[in-house]
């Protein structure tokens, strides 16, 4: 589509580029002035940047109310080669504005929370100077995410896609010198980046195929041509969408590329909340929903998407049951819920997917931040109980061998951290899908759609929902109920309002978020109808709703019988181990997926790389080829030139010339005898010669 059709910055839409500009401005200010102006300034600048983006997003929302078809806002020309035109342009429509509002809103709250959290964390880890760097990365992430969701073409979206991957890497490895062995955090960051890259490869191939097939990279044109033009065969569309799916599995942590997300919990908790729960991981689902035209045409791919989503949801939910790290439970829960969304997108329920995406952002961010609050509370308890100082066990990495993340070290925090407990409970109930909290409506819409379209998917998702309820119940009971199982837990205390207020904000959103798409009123469906083709409002299926609620309550009751009737004591092994037996070990070891990948992929690759580096590059190339062949022959040539050629020939010529002159002059000198009579004789001889010449010529 040529840019003459781009809406020429009408009214409020023209402010859209500010959404990206504000976080970039924030990060630049923090980069230049941050260290000098102190923590409070850095935190306020970063948070204000995101809040301002949120306000601009609201302006876009208002603009869309008047003009629901949206607009494309041109920022700058980027690539124009022949018929390919890839501009820096924003597509402001109901789908992107929904994403932008969610991301900036949740980001703003998390930024504010992070001010308090990082203030404690940098002191706990021992490097107060790193505070500014955190917020610089955080703002960079928001900027990149905004580019991702508001792009109007695949290439710009890919820039944002890569940008969020980069920020994820930077933030996971934020404490790069900490972690097990002084390197575990950095390794986790590297793992995230590398696994994401595999997904990016899929995205890139898809983009190449799109360009090859359609000749353009802009969304509007591609979708138009796909539907009405005759350019794309079914096979090509299937290929494109399957490669896109690879990208989705990387970014949104689905099978087979989900392995980076649990390790990513090595980053500070606000990072887990923002990037790995609410925003970056949703980019994959956004990609599918944005490309609903292509996925709608390639039915096989849609089915594959749905199956992968459902299987991931199920498997991740089972793994979460066997985890002891509070953040890891939430990580696998995130993978599972992302599976719900991916499955919904696969069966064509795009509105349900986006609905669940938004509500999930609310309660998962809430859960992560509350978990962070719990961890910080425990760390304060650790300090207070006198462990810091003489009795503290630090190994060389500065790593406390008391793990504040381990749920077995918690317990009884209900009385010690009341606000955190309440909001955590709200988040857990929302995640489990208890009406009337937000999670119920969104998850139920997915289940209702699945029930209608694809029964196998419905069964998998329903079982996953049961496990979800169970592990959340297990977690709440282990963390907040019973007696404290460690000194740190005994002395844990509540956190200051800068951390608890955002939690309350998110809790409110988790409660009322369901109002976005209530059955019957379905405001979100109507809203997204302008952007997505073929959406229909899901009918409220009473049977599914009641069944899921009942199953969730049963699962919670089971969790209570295991963990609630007799609370877990200090040092007691998990009772689930006895009940499930070897199955629990499978769950706890996450089906040994990481070990499997390590064996099949990582180790051969590393040994191949070592082979190339040591044998081919070093021994063959450097040692043999360079040193023996090139260096030696060069030196030999140089020696020949110096000794064989320069010395004898050139020096010889010069010296020889001098010698000739010398011998000649020596001989000539013999004429100068000094004897007058010799001179007289030569005079005489010359005279005779001249005379004979004159006489006989």
């Amino acid at each position, binding site marked *: 589509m040529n840019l003459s059709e781009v809406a020429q910055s009408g009214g409020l839409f023209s402010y859209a580029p500010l959404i990206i500009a504000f976080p970039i401005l924030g990060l630049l200010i923090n980069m230049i002035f941050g260290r000098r102006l102190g923590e409070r300034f850095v935190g306020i600048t970063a948070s204000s940047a995101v809040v301002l983006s949120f306000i601009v997003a609201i302006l876009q929302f208002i603009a869309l109310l008047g003009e629901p078809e949206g607009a494309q806002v041109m920022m700058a020309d980027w690539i124009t080669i022949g018929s390919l035109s890839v501009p820096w342009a924003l597509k402001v429509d109901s789908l992107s504005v929904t994403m932008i509002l969610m991301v900036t809103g949740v980001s703003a709250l998390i930024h504010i929370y992070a001010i308090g959290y990082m203030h404690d964390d940098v002191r706990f880890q021992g490097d107060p100077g790193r505070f500014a760097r955190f917020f610089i990365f955080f703002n960079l992430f928001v900027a990149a995410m905004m580019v991702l969701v508001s792009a109007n073409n695949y290439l710009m979206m890919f820039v944002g896609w890569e940008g969020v991957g980069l920020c994820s890497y930077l933030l996971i490895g934020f404490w790069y010198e900490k972690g097990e062995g002084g390197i575990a955090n950095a390794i986790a960051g590297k793992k995230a980046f590398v696994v994401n890259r595999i997904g990016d490869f899929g995205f890139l191939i898809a983009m190449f195929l799109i360009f090859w097939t359609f000749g353009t990279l802009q969304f509007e044109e591609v979708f138009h041509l796909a539907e009405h033009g005759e350019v794309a065969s079914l096979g090509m569309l299937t290929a494109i969408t399957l490669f896109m799916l690879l990208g989705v599995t990387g970014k949104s942590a689905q099978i087979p590329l989900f392995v980076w997300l649990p390790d990513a919990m090595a980053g500070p908790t606000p990072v887990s909340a923002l990037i790995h729960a609410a925003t970056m991981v949703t980019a994959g689902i956004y990609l599918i929903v944005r490309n609903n035209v292509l996925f709608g045409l390639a039915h096989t791919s849609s089915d594959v998407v749905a199956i992968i989503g459902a299987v991931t949801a199920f498997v991740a939910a089972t793994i979460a049951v066997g985890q002891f790290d509070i953040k890891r439970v939430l990580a696998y829960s995130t993978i599972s819920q992302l599976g719900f969304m991916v499955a919904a997108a696969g069966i064509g329920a795009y509105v349900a997917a986006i609905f669940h995406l938004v509500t999930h952002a609310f309660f998962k961010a809430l859960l992560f931040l509350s978990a962070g609050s719990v961890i910080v509370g425990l760390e304060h308890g650790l300090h207070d109980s006198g462990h810091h100082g003489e009795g503290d066990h630090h190994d060389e990495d500065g790593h406390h061998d008391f793990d504040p993340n381990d749920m077995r070290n918690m317990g009884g925090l209900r009385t010690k951290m009341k606000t955190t407990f309440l909001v955590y409970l709200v988040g857990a109930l929302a995640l489990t899908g208890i009406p009337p909290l937000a999670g119920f409506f969104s998850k139920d819409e997915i289940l209702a759609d699945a029930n209608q379209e694809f029964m196998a998917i419905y069964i998998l998702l329903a079982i996953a929902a049961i496990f979800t309820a169970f592990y959340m119940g297990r977690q709440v009971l282990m963390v907040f109920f019973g007696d404290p199982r460690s000194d740190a837990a005994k002395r844990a205390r509540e956190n200051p309002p800068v951390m608890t207020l955002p939690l309350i904000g998110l809790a409110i959103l988790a409660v009322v978020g369901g109002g976005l798409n209530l059955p019957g009123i379905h405001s979100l469906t109507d809203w997204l109808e302008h952007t997505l083709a073929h959406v229909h409002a899901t009918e409220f299926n009473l049977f599914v709703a009641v069944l899921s609620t009942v199953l969730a309550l049963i699962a919670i009751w089971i969790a209570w019988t295991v963990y609630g009737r007799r609370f877990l004591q200090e040092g007691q092994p998990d009772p689930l181990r006895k009940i499930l037996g070897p199955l629990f070990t499978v769950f706890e070891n996450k089906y040994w997926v990481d070990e499997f990948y390590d064996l099949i992929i990582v180790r051969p690759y590393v040994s191949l790389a070592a082979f190339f580096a040591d044998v081919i590059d070093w021994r063959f190339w450097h040692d043999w080829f360079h040193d023996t062949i090139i260096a030696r022959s060069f030196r030999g040539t140089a020696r020949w030139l110096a000794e064989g050629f320069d010395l004898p020939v050139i020096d010889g010529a010069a010296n020889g010339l001098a010698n000739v002159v010398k011998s000649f002059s020596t001989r000539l000198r013999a*004429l*100068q*005898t*000094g*004897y007058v*009579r010799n001179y*007289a*004789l030569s005079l*005489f001889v010359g005279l005779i010669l001249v005379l004979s010449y004159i006489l006989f010529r």
Partner: protein
Amino acid sequence: MNVPTSYLLALSGVLFVIGAMGVLTRRNAIVIFMSIELMLNSANLAFIAFARSFVDLQGQVMVFFVIAVAAAEVAVGLALIVSIFRTKQSIDVDQISSLKG
């Protein structure tokens, strides 16, 4: 008694050669001078012979010039020899070889 001009010229030539041999061969500086005088005088003789044969007085005038020049040259030359004798205590030309290269 008409002496043929060729006899006079032959005598002149012989005298010149004797004088040249003397210049080239003798070591005594005064003897060399005498030989030079001999050469000069042989040239004089040649002039006279031609003056007589062509009945032209110009030849005889030349002789006067030559004699005058010879006298001047002897004066200078003898002064040089005296000076050399004062330095070297000898007039052996073979000993004046300090310009030897």
